[in-house]
């Protein structure tokens, strides 16, 4: 198999020469230049508010780049979609937790692509791809999650699992209030309740969720 070393950094080509069983040819990701550059602080705020238009735009603007990268690096379109959605959630989460510093980064688009790329590289490095040991030399963008964030991730996963057990009504109330950020008034109108009922139901659903999680 011919390996085009001109596409790969010096460290990797060294590794490739040592290891004749490389199955992966790493193609670089070309940075996406968006057709429009929205004011990043506005975009950031919209995403923080879970504005559907902003979320959808962020999603559709960057998917093709990531799919192309994954597919050129031993992946399938299905794998690309999964990795991209993981990356998208991770980026969204960092924005919610105020961890995304807009000033230090080129753009949200580039950040999303970067996270996706790192996730794909992590996937390739995993146990299933033991033979591609040369990838250990590959420089990855410093996005290593500290231990506390892993703990956080576990708790978030537990929350997500337990939400599914909540039941349709609670799920809807909590989604409307916390995700769509609807006011209690809007919710009460939508669910045909009084505002007081809406408030009480929201409280009860939240307690129920806490109980489910803390039950373990």
């Amino acid at each position, binding site marked *: 198999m011919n390996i085009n070393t001109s596409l790969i950094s010096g460290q990797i080509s060294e590794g490739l020469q040592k290891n004749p069983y490389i199955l992966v040819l790493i193609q670089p990701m070309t940075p996406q230049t968006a057709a429009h550059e929205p004011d990043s602080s506005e975009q950031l705020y919209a995403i923080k508010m879970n504005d559907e238009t902003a979320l959808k735009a962020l999603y559709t603007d960057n998917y093709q780049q990531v799919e192309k990268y994954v597919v050129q690096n031993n992946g*399938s379109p299905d794998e690309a979609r999964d990795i991209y959605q993981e990356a998208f959630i991770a980026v969204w989460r960092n924005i919610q937790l105020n961890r995304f510093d807009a000033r230090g980064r080129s753009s949200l688009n580039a950040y999303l692509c970067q996270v996706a790329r790192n996730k794909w590289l992590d996937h390739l490095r995993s146990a299933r791809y033991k033979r591609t040991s040369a990838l250990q030399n590959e420089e990855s963008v410093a996005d290593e999650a500290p231990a506390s964030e892993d703990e956080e991730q576990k708790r978030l996963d537990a929350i997500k699992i337990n939400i599914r057990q909540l039941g349709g009504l609670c799920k809807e109330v909590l989604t409307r209030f916390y995700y769509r950020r609807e006011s209690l008034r809007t919710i009460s109108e939508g669910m045909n309740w009084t505002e007081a009922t809406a408030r009480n139901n929201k409280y009860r659903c939240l*307690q129920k969720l806490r109980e489910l999680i803390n039950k373990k």
Partner: protein
Amino acid sequence: MNHDSPIPHEELDAIERFLKNEMSPTETMAFQNRMQADDLLRARVSEMRLLIIGIQESAISERLNDFHKGITQRPILNMRFRRWLVAAAVIAVAGSAVIYFFNGHRSAEQTFAAYYQPDPGLISSMGAADNYDFDRAMVDYKKGDYNKSLNAWHELNKRQPGNDTLQYFIGSAYLALGNAKNAAPYFREVLADSSSAFASDASWYLGLSLLRLDDPTAAIPFIQRSVHPARNEVLQKLEKK
């Protein structure tokens, strides 16, 4: 301190307002002071922070597949598919080469099929005792019972090696069975003796055997040496390459 205990409704409201930055600066500072002093409050704020994000994350995860539907699908020629296409192209080219190759050579076999007729055999005279075995086998040969005649003639050949009649008809029987490979050496044996009465016929049938074996180049000289009525036609066909 029971971190699992239900959070009072009022406190929950306060925590949510704090987390959503809906408190005034003084309120915020007061709340932060309370948190510093109160472990339980701090724990609850931390818990709620994660809980709220978890609820949102659960909701957004369900939206992603809807977002994905908005991706206009461009056919991606991925590496595996590309390799498959290359392989398919290689096979197609190789395949057509093989077909071309076989077409060229099938004409040799087609020529054989068009011009081969088994030797009719000798008129047997069952009378003479010393030729009885040979004649008996010839009867079988004429009936089309080639294997039976071969068995008998092989036996005779062991006892009377170098008999061109035997060798010629052993070859003929083999060729009649479609076994050109076994027939050819017997015809060559016959041709080793140029004075043989069977030389011309052996040459013809050796030529045909070689066509059957897909070797028209080797067949041509033998066809040329024969005097078969179809000789020229066959040569014309073979020399058309």
